[in-house]
């Protein structure tokens, strides 16, 4: 009567569990040994893009970078207060000696946002077009958003080792769901009457997509991109754990050595970057939908 299933959960035996772990670990290890190089090579172009972008940001004089970002901010929002805010944020980062780290962070955020958009928007479009695709992708996104980042870091690191590319992968996995979800949502919410009108004039699938659905879904898609950028920034410290350079690394150092001020400064720098890109992308989203509100655009 000692071990009845009534008193004790009928779990697998310790031996069985151990065997499962050993087998699946061994299988994955074999996979990484056999295919690691191929996978590595597949990500090579991405690595080169990352390095190129990082070098670009580091080699360019700081004031050129600031001017370019200011130009972007102005083009997106046409607002002088926005530009002043952006300038102040960037100057403060540089003033406290974090310029180089900030540029490294900027490069990984930039590339992962780009990758997220390039993969996310088509996925979102696919989901919007097919209910079956939606029912498959949605649970995958749920897992991506709830699975602790450390857990999916394990296979990524086993496969690709430590460095920029696994960091990028981790960031993209964490940051891509909003852009996919909101692209899907935006397209599905497009006014049925407008779409019907387009159809009645003989618009084919791609004319409906590019001429009606994407433009009308743009504000929602932009909100998704904005969220993606924010989430990518939130991953900076975790990415630093697997060898991505940037503002995350000093933060990690501070945790280990209890450097309060250093941690705080780098943390604030991440916040500053986040605010800069949040405001720029929001200003763009707002300006791109002036026609909806009835205010005549300039």
């Amino acid at each position: 009567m000692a071990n009845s299933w009534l008193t004790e959960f009928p779990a697998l035996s310790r031996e069985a569990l151990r065997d499962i772990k050993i087998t699946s670990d061994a299988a994955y290890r074999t996979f990484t040994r056999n295919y690691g190089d191929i996978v590595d090579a597949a990500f090579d172009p991405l690595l080169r893009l990352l390095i190129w972008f990082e070098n670009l940001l580091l080699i360019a004089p700081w004031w050129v970078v600031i001017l370019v970002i200011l130009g972007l901010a102005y083009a997106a929002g046409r607002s002088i207060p926005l530009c002043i805010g952006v300038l102040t944020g960037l100057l403060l980062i540089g003033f406290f000696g974090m310029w180089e780290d900030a540029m490294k962070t900027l490069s990984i955020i930039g590339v992962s946002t780009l990758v997220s958009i390039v993969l996310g928007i088509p996925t979102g479009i696919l989901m919007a077009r097919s209910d079956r695709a939606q029912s498959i992708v949605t649970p995958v996104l749920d897992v991506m958003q709830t699975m602790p980042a450390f857990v999916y870091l394990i296979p990524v690191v086993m496969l690709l080792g430590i460095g920029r590319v696994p960091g990028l992968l981790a960031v993209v996995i964490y940051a891509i769901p909003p852009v996919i979800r909101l692209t899907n949502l935006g397209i599905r919410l497009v006014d049925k009457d407008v779409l019907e009108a387009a159809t009645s004039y003989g618009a084919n699938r791609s004319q409906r997509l590019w001429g009606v659905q994407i433009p009308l879904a743009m504000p929602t898609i932009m909100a998704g991109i904005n969220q993606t950028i924010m989430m990518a920034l939130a991953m900076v410290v975790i990415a630093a754990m697997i060898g991505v350079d940037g503002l995350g690394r000093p933060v990690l150092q501070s945790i280990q050595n209890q450097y309060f001020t250093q941690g705080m400064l780098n943390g604030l720098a991440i916040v500053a970057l986040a605010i800069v890109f949040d405001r720029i992308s929001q200003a763009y989203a707002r300006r791109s939908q002036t026609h909806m509100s009835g205010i005549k655009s300039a």
Partner: protein
Amino acid sequence: MPDPLIKVEGLYKIYGPSPKEVLPLIHAGSSKADILAETGHTVGLKDIHLEIEKGKIFVIMGLSGSGKSTLIRHFNRLIEPTAGHIYIEDTDVMKLSDRELEDYRRNKMSMVFQRFGLMPHRTVLRNVGYGLSVQGVSREKQDQEAQRWLDAVGLTGYENHFPAQLSGGEQQRVGLARALATNAEILLMDEAFSALDPLIRTEMRDQLIELQKKLHKTIIFITHDLDEALHLGDKIAILKDGELIQVGTPAQILLNPVDDYVEAFVRGVNRGRALTVEAVMRDPRLQITSDDVDSALDQMRKAKATFGYYVPNGTYAGVVAQLDLVEVAREDGQASLFDHMIDPSVSVTPDTRICATLAETVAADFPLPVLDEDGVLIGELPREVVFEVLNEEA
């Protein structure tokens, strides 16, 4: 009657998981309610047959839920039928492939929607040019055509506005201009004016009639408003619960409602305002062609008429009365009729509303002559007819 441009044959639309299986039940005579109770399928349209003439306004009227919006969406296959055919000239629309259908929608038909369906991200000018942009017409040509139609609907100056900046009436004008810009032969109008307030609605209706005089499109117009139907329609089809119950001219519908449903519909209508002289006039009873009084009297006696219309050389000149002529004949039987006509200026045109003829009808002792634009006598309007039309109880 000339060959119809559009022919609808045996069109059925059933909503539900397996519509084809329900079809035999309908053929067997089950009612809409029975089918819903037994199979969970909704009958949207049932055995629709229609013939629509080229260049005319064909109104499909019914209350909400009668299937009229479903029906109009079959013409350009925004909705696929369960069974049946729609022929346009010799083409069966239901057999078109996807590509052919796109082509058809681009060139043959355009549509105006109840809630406008304008693209909020395009300017007014670009909205009007939308159909052309889908066709792949050059941007320059698009804008040029769009401008022309924008002018035609009276929206010059609004080119660079966005739809959200316009009032409902203005937005629907854009919708109309967009539909006209593709130069499609057939215009589908789905409750096009129903979302507008009454004053604007009347204005748009008159504008459509004006445009139609120049363009001679074949227009299929959906409405739930009988007044609108009577005003616009060359022919009206009345739809109830997915079935056509009467098709006819406005006068036929008003004067001979086929059942209680239609009668209830038309009861509230001011027939004097809805009907034109043309719809109720009779053939002229007596046309006098000879010039002298004696032979005119002769003709009247033979026709047993107390009045006659004097029509020398085929053109209407005036009315003559037997009583007057008898007096004249005592002195001079050869006198010219020209000198003894009753006021020749009293006449009505065929498109006058009955109520507008009331004063003249009452004042004149004779049936009013009906003259077309060229002054040719085409009918007469007896007083009894006018009173009958105006008598609601009739």
